[in-house]
């Protein structure tokens, strides 16, 4: 199955800057792994996978901006599942986020 990770609903934030992806396309994240760090106007947001998945496509690279709720990347259960054209209909990957 194909999933997307979107910018989590951080309170009082309109948009974030992507700081750093913790793996390249093809990397397998386990549940609990840090996937990406995002920067708000105040703090850093750590987004951790709550289920395993392969990183397949980065939609917002490090240094780029994205709004709350919009997609950052596409992941999949299996490394070779074919990707859809648009990320609109994808389910969200289960994640946990914390603000430091």
């Amino acid at each position, binding site marked *: 199955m194909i999933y997307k990770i979107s910018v989590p609903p951080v309170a*009082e*934030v*309109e*948009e974030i*800057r992507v700081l750093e992806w913790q793996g390249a396309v093809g990397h397998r994240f386990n549940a609990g792994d840090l996937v990406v760090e995002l920067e*708000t*106007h*105040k703090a850093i947001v750590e987004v951790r996978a709550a289920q395993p998945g392969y990183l397949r496509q980065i939609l917002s690279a490090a240094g780029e*901006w994205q709004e709350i709720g919009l997609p950052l990347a596409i992941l999949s259960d299996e490394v070779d599942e074919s990707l859809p054209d648009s990320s609109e209909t994808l389910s969200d990957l289960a994640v946990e986020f914390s603000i430091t």
Partner: protein
Amino acid sequence: MSSDTSPPVEKIFFREAIARAAREEMRKTPEIIILGQDVGYFGGSYREFDGLFEEFGATRVRDTPVAEASMVGFGVGAAAAGLRPLVCITYMDFLMLGFDPLINYGAKLRFKTGGQLTAPVIVKTTAGAKGQGVAHSQCIEAWLMGVPGLKVVAPATPADAYGLLKAAFRETGPVVYVDHKRLFPIAGPVPLAETIVPIGKAAVRRAGTDLTITSHSFMVRTALEAAKMLEGEGIDAEVIDLRSLAPLDMATISESVRKTGAILTLEEGQVTAGVGAEVVSRVMETIGAVPFSRIGALPAPVSSNPILEAACLPSTGRVVQAAMALQRKKARGVNHVVAETIE
């Protein structure tokens, strides 16, 4: 074939724009120091001084006790004696404590000494309501506009936060630099090249033909949202970001109202003796009577209660309603608008 001639930019947070301006200026001008609460290791209440403590050290980026009267007094006195201080007053509500040294000494120093001394100090302060209650929400910049000897600026974008701060560091007298709590979450383009935004120059944010909306600080965003909604009502609003409250750019404002024939002023502060009162008076002194409307906070303290705060502050809806009423008056050739009543 058209080409994009606008300069290369970087998209950064509002706070990063302030830090960038301060850093550039502090590298060039050793006399610049920063005084305030939590400006040092903490990097500023909004992280607007991030990195400066690490680069310039504790003597140039100095934490002071909570003592706004003497913070401003020290800043003004140090400026008179050769430094270029930036005094950071975290909440504009507490700038009132510093009014004596700022207004009675700083703003009058050049005049009262017959030109022997001046005080090139920047007092940076954050205005606006964001859930923090009656004594931590005020926008009182209008109170300062009429002080001879004092300049007042209010950026609404990261680019102007950067450019106006650089301009302020070039002034020879005191400048109050007013930012806003609700501007800090915003990111926007800032020229990569060193760029100064001149004090005394407004910016037309949206060209239009039916009415002029003037605003400053966070309310510029509300004005632009209202303008979008007014499009749907067939009303084409011109939105002017004042940027500089003292001196006001009356040339830009008057030219706009000459074109549109009506003016709506929008501020988060009080309308009584507010920024809009001054703008409208001066417009009429220049071009004669025009229909006008002034929008500001309700005449009440702004509670931290989210329901009451939202009711107090100008909303996009109120601006749209007022603009539509203004258009109707304009169409009937009526040159005054009865003050809005809030239900």
